[in-house]
């Protein structure tokens, strides 16, 4: 079975975009080949900064034949009285080159038609590939496109060559001004400029000879291995981020490690500063020894080992210069203690309509103190929070944060300590932006947690107040991320508080702006982010059931959803019974507004029975909810199932006497309310 290779040769792709583009190219072919009746056995995606490649094994030489039934004229029109074909039928036969004996008759609806079985011979795979490859390239999703020549084609970076081989044969695909050939290119500096390929199968090996590792996993392995060797050799630990590895894999065709050192005199700089200097632009891997920065770093040269040591010297010179800059910033920053910088925040506009950063700090402070009250922070914690909130943004005026924005907060903590602030205050400042990303750690202290919560809620409420809400993939103020972090904080710590109340209490802090959005929209947005978070781990319908009864207690909402999910796991039937009983109640009483009822108007035994159970369950439910024991609450609700079903079997709700009818509806509505403590169970898929 033939093998196929497509390589799209480019100028250097942005390091973090290449993998998704390569995957998309593979997916596009994986979708279109079977659709074109060219099923294949295996497809593999390879890429480097300068190429996206797809290798396909086990492709048929030609498409399978296509057999279709084609409808011709109706029998009444196509055959004369003697059953011979008329002119109409002969025309139909001519069109498909068939003879009268090929005709079949088949009924469609209430009429009989003439049919032909038409076989279209499959085309050679190469011919089909010539058509689908350009489409696959054209449809690659780029976040930004550019033009580079007169052809008018656009891509993320210029496409400079194409390789398209079916076994030994070139498929001369055209794209823009290019025609595909069999010639790939080696490493820019250490490989041959042109590598003619005999067949797809030799792609990896010929590239390897040309100092290019086509497989990104192999490059990642080389990078990790190099870091491990430094770890072993120096007794240190590499300080990785996933992003750093991604950038390295995405910017090297052949990672060759270069170990550098920097003078120990710089080790008195704070560890995060050293890491930031080395991480800058995703260049170097920092190391730590016993938790303290180590004076070594690992960089990579692309293509070949640094035999003469020139590259190492260059790296070391650059790192030293940057560390020297960092020291300059650090020492300058220390000349003005952090608390004195708070006043300067009045001069930094946060957002024209929302005022200065100082204004933002006031709002954060206000929200934080309210949240501290709701969460019952101690006197001492509140004192520290009061101070930390005031200082949390002061590091925005420092040179270090201007130079390394990712050190915001971290520097605030360091400078707070230098200014003699209590450790709790410094720690809270340091933690007030956590979690920075999905999966990042949460603040470790109560004060840091509350400050982070307030910081995020202010970001969200501020953006809503001025109508700058995220739409689609557009989120200029990073609000979605802030809200996700907020939800993460509440669920992760966890925090038991009413976020909606916090929103309501903060509304007055924001200006009224035309086009601004109010607190109800903030709440809906936050709920939506909660929905997003819960769906990661729970069934869709369980999440919808609890969110149908919106509450500001997000932790409680999650607890309810978990209880439902657990019941589904343990006793599926029981959950279905609950949902069914609730459904019956909702059908009849869902739209009924009143809840006051009078037991004296009950007429049937089943009514009395349900009422007795209702009273018992109601008080037990209250107790369970107070303890936030949602599984227990569900267990109590289950006791209602029997009596509810019996009620519907025996009682005719729509009694002719209006007073009795209304009373029954109000009673059922009250029973339904108990279920709503957990959620709208009619949303469950049973």
């Amino acid at each position: 079975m033939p093998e196929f290779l497509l390589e799209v040769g480019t100028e250097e792709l942005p390091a973090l975009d290449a993998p998704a583009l390569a995957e998309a190219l593979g997916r596009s072919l994986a979708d279109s080949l079977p659709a074109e009746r060219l099923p294949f056995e295996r497809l593999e995606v390879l890429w480097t900064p300068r190429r996206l490649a797809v290798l396909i094994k086990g492709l048929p030489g030609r498409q399978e034949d296509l057999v279709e039934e084609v409808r011709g004229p109706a029998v009444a029109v196509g055959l004369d009285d003697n059953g011979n074909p008329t002119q109409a039928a002969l025309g139909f036969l001519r069109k498909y080159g068939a003879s009268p004996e090929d005709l079949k008759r088949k009924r469609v609806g209430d009429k009989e038609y003439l049919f032909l079985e038409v076989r279209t011979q499959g085309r050679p795979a190469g011919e089909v590939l010539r058509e689908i490859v350009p489409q696959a390239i054209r449809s690659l999703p780029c976040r930004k496109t550019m033009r580079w020549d007169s052809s008018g084609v656009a891509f993320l970076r210029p496409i400079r060559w194409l390789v398209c081989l079916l076994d030994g044969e070139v498929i001369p695909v055209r794209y823009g001004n290019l025609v595909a050939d069999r010639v790939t290119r080696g490493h820019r500096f250490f490989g041959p400029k042109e590598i003619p390929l005999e067949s797809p199968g030799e792609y990896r090996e010929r590239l390897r000879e040309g100092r290019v590792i086509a497989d990104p996993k192999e490059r990642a392995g080389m990078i990790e291995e190099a870091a491990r060797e430094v770890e072993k050799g120096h007794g240190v630990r590499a300080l990785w981020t996933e992003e750093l590895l991604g950038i390295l894999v995405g910017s090297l065709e052949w990672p060759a490690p270069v170990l550098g050192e920097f003078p120990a005199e710089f080790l008195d700089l704070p560890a995060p500063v050293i890491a930031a200097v080395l991480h800058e632009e995703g260049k170097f891997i920092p190391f730590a020894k016993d938790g303290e920065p180590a004076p070594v770093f690992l960089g990579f040269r692309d293509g070949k080992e640094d035999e003469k040591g020139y590259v190492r010297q260059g790296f070391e010179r650059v790192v030293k210069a940057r560390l020297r800059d960092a020291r300059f910033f650090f020492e300058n920053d220390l000349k003005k203690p952090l608390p004195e910088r708070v006043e300067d925040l009045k001069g930094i506009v946060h957002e024209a309509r929302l005022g200065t950063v100082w204004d933002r700090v006031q709002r954060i402070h206000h929200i934080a103190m309210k949240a501290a009250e709701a969460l019952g922070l101690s006197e001492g914690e509140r004192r520290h929070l009061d101070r930390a909130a005031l200082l949390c943004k002061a590091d925005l005026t420092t040179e270090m944060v201007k130079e390394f924005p990712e050190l915001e907060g971290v520097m605030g903590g360091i400078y707070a300590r230098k200014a003699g602030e209590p450790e709790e205050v410094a720690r809270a400042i340091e933690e007030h932006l956590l979690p920075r990303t999905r999966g990042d750690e949460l603040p470790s202290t109560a004060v840091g947690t509350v400050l982070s919560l307030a910081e995020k809620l202010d970001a969200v409420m501020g953006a809503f107040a001025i109508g700058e809400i995220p739409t689609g993939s557009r989120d200029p103020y990073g609000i979605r991320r802030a809200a996700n972090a907020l939800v993460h904080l509440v669920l992760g710590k966890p925090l038991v508080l009413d976020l909606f109340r916090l929103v309501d209490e903060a509304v007055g802090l924001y200006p009224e702006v035309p086009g601004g959005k109010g607190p109800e929209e903030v709440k809906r947005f936050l709920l939506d982010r909660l929905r997003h978070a819960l769906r990661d781990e729970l069934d869709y319908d369980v999440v919808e059931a609890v969110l149908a009864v919106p509450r500001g207690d997000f932790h409680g909402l999650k607890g309810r959803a978990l209880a439902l999910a657990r019941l589904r796991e343990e006793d599926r039937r029981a959950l279905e019974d609950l949902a069914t009983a609730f459904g019956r109640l909702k059908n009849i009483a869902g739209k009924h507004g009143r809840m006051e009822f009078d037991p004296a108007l009950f007429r049937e035994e089943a009514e009395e029975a349900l009422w007795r159970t209702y009273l018992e369950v109601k008080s037990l439910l209250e107790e369970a909810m107070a303890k936030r024991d949602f599984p227990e609450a569900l267990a109590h609700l289950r006791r209602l199932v029997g009596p509810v079903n019996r009620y519907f079997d025996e009682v005719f709700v729509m009694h002719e006497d209006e007073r009795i009818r209304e009373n029954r509806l109000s009673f059922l509505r009250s029973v339904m309310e108990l279920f709503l403590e957990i959620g709208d169970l009619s949303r469950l898929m049973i």
Partner: protein
Amino acid sequence: MRGSQKRVKTFQDLVLALHEYWRDQGCVIFEPYDVEKGAGTFNPATFFGCLGPDPWRVAYIEPSRRPTDGRYGENPIRLRLHHQYQVILKPPPPDIQDLYLGSLEHVGIDLRDHDVKFSEDDWESPTLGAWGVGWQVWLDEMEITQFTYFQQMGGVDLDPVSVELTYGLERIAIFLQGVESAFDLLWSEDVRYGEIWHEKERQFSIYNFERADVGRIRRMFELAEAEAKSCLEAGLVFPAYDHVLHCSHLFNVLDARGAISVTERESYIARIRELARACAQKYLALLEESRARVLA
């Protein structure tokens, strides 16, 4: 790599070697434009040269003034005025990356002994209404060149597109001469960079950060803006553009002086961009009318 390797010792040799290399690639060797500007891109040879359909190859050195980058002459590499070497190739040849790398070899950098990476960096100038796509070029992890495929200039979609190469001359010279500070560079065999530039860095830093009279500079901005507008009304696109350059520089001084709030900044930038757009439009109209080459 093409080109023969040079032994480039001094700063001025570096410039001459680049001139030589790009002259051989058919570039017009242009001069710095004698109006203050923050980057070589603002030179009319680039701004106007990228507009319109005619092929255009130009190379020149450009002293670029960035008031906020001043460090009183105390930082080895951050300078209020640094020198860019600027190349425009319209349309870009398909082997443009190799051509560029050839220029590094030509000035004496042996690429087989060093490390060169093209790292994503998309360039944008909100004041010129211009943007492009490309890289920073890193030599042993030191940034030496901005490499950009311009897509838009003065708010106009470019067809054909141009490639702009902006070499940071001080950085390359530091690399070649093996010194740590720009001020230690040899400008010529017997004159050091610092002897020419150090005191100027100090004085301009004091001026830009501490002394520039905000009220007067603002008025100068208004005057330059008004002058640009009246030139545009009279169809005098090149004089108008000189005043756009004045506006841009005065804005940079105000910025360094800390006199511009975030909101004001937006509106200043928008005002300059409007003028730049108008210049681009007028220039294209002129090309249409005259049906002659009016090169930048």
